[in-house]
């Protein structure tokens, strides 16, 4: 493990990404302690509404006089919670399906993969929008919709890996000494598929933050007064062009966080598969 970590530490963009991810994580955990006005998650102060950035309010204030810096900080928790839950659920559904479909060679495998392909045939955002809409819009529906549309990515990867591993000698050897299918799949094949899954999950976290922000922006995710970044950008639109800061800072927060996960994911991918260096 150590040589791998050393290699990762020499990858400057990946380390930059890791630093961003750690900072966002810290901000998410310590949010209420770091925010200058922790009460501004819900409070409103109409006397100081729409103030431009100043010493007291470095990012300015919004339409209800709330400190935007505080809300960006407080929003980090939600911004990370959603993708963690979504990617977690997607992995729980997608990985076992991929294992089963990859190990078996019968109609079960065939139908799992056909279904996976069918879900992948619709762009994720569109499918997630439709599902979230059908499930009566709320943050929970948005998370469920995102999970139900992200699992096929894991199934595809795990399927390909499992197929490759099932043909390898060590699986033959295990069969020879009488190991059962369940044992081979979960104790021997699963650990070997873990690294591509981690890479996919890291990139998926960044991607899900973006899609979740779109849902929030369209009013299908977090509900006011939650300090959601996407929601804040939607609220800011009525106050442009005068209040540029209202839209700018939540967007920069999204940009930075997603960039962190992407850079880290790219670095991890290079480690797992050096052939694909920076190709995506």
């Amino acid at each position, binding site marked *: 493990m150590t040589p791998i970590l050393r290699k990762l530490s020499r990858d400057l*963009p990946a380390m930059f990404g890791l630093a961003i991810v750690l900072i966002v994580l810290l901000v998410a955990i310590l949010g209420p302690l770091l925010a200058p006005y922790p009460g501004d998650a819900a409070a409103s102060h109409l006397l100081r509404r729409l103030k431009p950035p100043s010493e007291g309010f470095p990012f300015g204030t919004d339409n209800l006089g709330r400190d935007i810096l505080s809300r960006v900080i407080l929003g980090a928790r939600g911004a990370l919670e959603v993708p963690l839950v979504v990617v977690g659920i997607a992995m729980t559904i997608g990985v076992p399906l991929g294992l089963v479909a990859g190990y078996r060679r019968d109609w079960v495998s065939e139908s799992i993969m*056909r*279904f996976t*392909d*069918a*879900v992948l*045939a*619709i*762009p*994720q*955002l*569109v*499918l997630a*929008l*439709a*599902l979230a*809409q*059908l*499930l*009566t819009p709320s943050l929970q529906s948005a998370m469920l919709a995102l999970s139900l549309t992200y699992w096929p990515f894991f199934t595809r990867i795990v399927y390909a890996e499992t197929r490759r591993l099932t043909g390898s000698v060590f699986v033959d050897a295990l069969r020879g000494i009488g190991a059962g299918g369940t044992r081979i799949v979960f104790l021997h094949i699963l650990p070997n598929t873990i690294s591509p899954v981690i890479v996919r999950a890291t990139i998926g976290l*960044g991607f899900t933050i*973006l899609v979740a*922000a*779109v849902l929030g*922006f*369209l*009013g*299908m995710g977090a509900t006011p007064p939650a300090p959601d970044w*996407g929601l804040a*950008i939607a609220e*800011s*639109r009525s106050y*442009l*062009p005068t209040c*540029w800061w209202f*839209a*700018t800072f*939540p*967007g920069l927060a*999204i*940009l930075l966080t*997603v*960039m962190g996960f*992407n*850079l880290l994911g790219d670095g991890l991918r290079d480690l797992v598969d050096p052939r694909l*260096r*920076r*190709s*995506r």
Partner: protein
Amino acid sequence: MLRFVLRRCGLALPSLFGLLVITFLMIRLVPSDPAAAMAGDDATPQQIALLRHQYGFDRPIWEQFGVYLGKIARFDLGESAFSHRPIALDIAQRLPATLELIVVSLLLSVGIGVPLGVFAALRYNQGADYLLRIVSVLGVAVAAFWLAIMLQLLFSMQLGWLPLRGELAEATAPPARVTGSILLDSVIDGRWDALVDALRHLVLPAVTLAFGSLASIVRFTRAGVLETLQNDFVFYERAMGYRRSRLIWLYVLRNSVTATVTQIGLLFGSLIAGGVVVEAIFDWPGIGSYTVQAILTGDRQVMLAVTLLIGAIYAAVNIVTDVVHGLIDPRLLDRP
């Protein structure tokens, strides 16, 4: 070649069938009663029962699926619950505007992205390469709706260079509708003033959409060219005295773009999806703003029709991508 195309279309059939099953199940399997949702909050139980019967929700599920397939085959996508117009009609009217926006964005990102990718590969690990890599990382990470608002803020609201929204200024009379794409219609109608106005309106939405795909095209082209440059044939042709520019833009590029072509196919999907919000922000009268309108009004029938439409377009694009692949690299034609 024809056999390859047919086989590829055949492979898409299970996916398309799956798409129909998914869109069908989506409305039937949601916990809430679709008839009650359609009828609204203050509907009487009788009204709901009537609607349920009208839409056939009281029939067995496989029978409902048969009816659904029959309707789709006749391009009957149902009626919008709010405008009470046939959805197929709305879509036919709006699709050209969306396709126009997507094609222009794609042309922008390929036209700029491929040369930039080659350029970055030739300047491997030098300043320009690093700069392009940073830009492409930003391009993938930026939220399109935020970028759209920032561009509006800067170029329309502050500088006043470009129009804020819509596809034509109110003062400009629209050209006679032939294709539905305002650029083509202006040319057909000989309305050069409308063409200029339409192009000005197209800049911001197209640039917003193109930015994300530009980033991945640069990355893929760069990676492809870097890999091809390692090949012996490049070394050989160089030794044979080929002009460098001819070698790179003709031989190296052709061998490098297969991954980029796949990427363009995938990007088409993400452009349609990304277009949903971007169209809504720029009031672009296409499928995207139609979708957002359906979301805001809770129009499920429209949501499902749009999902089905986009899935079908995506499947078609994937077939085209494979065929283009075959044209670039004829070896693929013989593979099973």
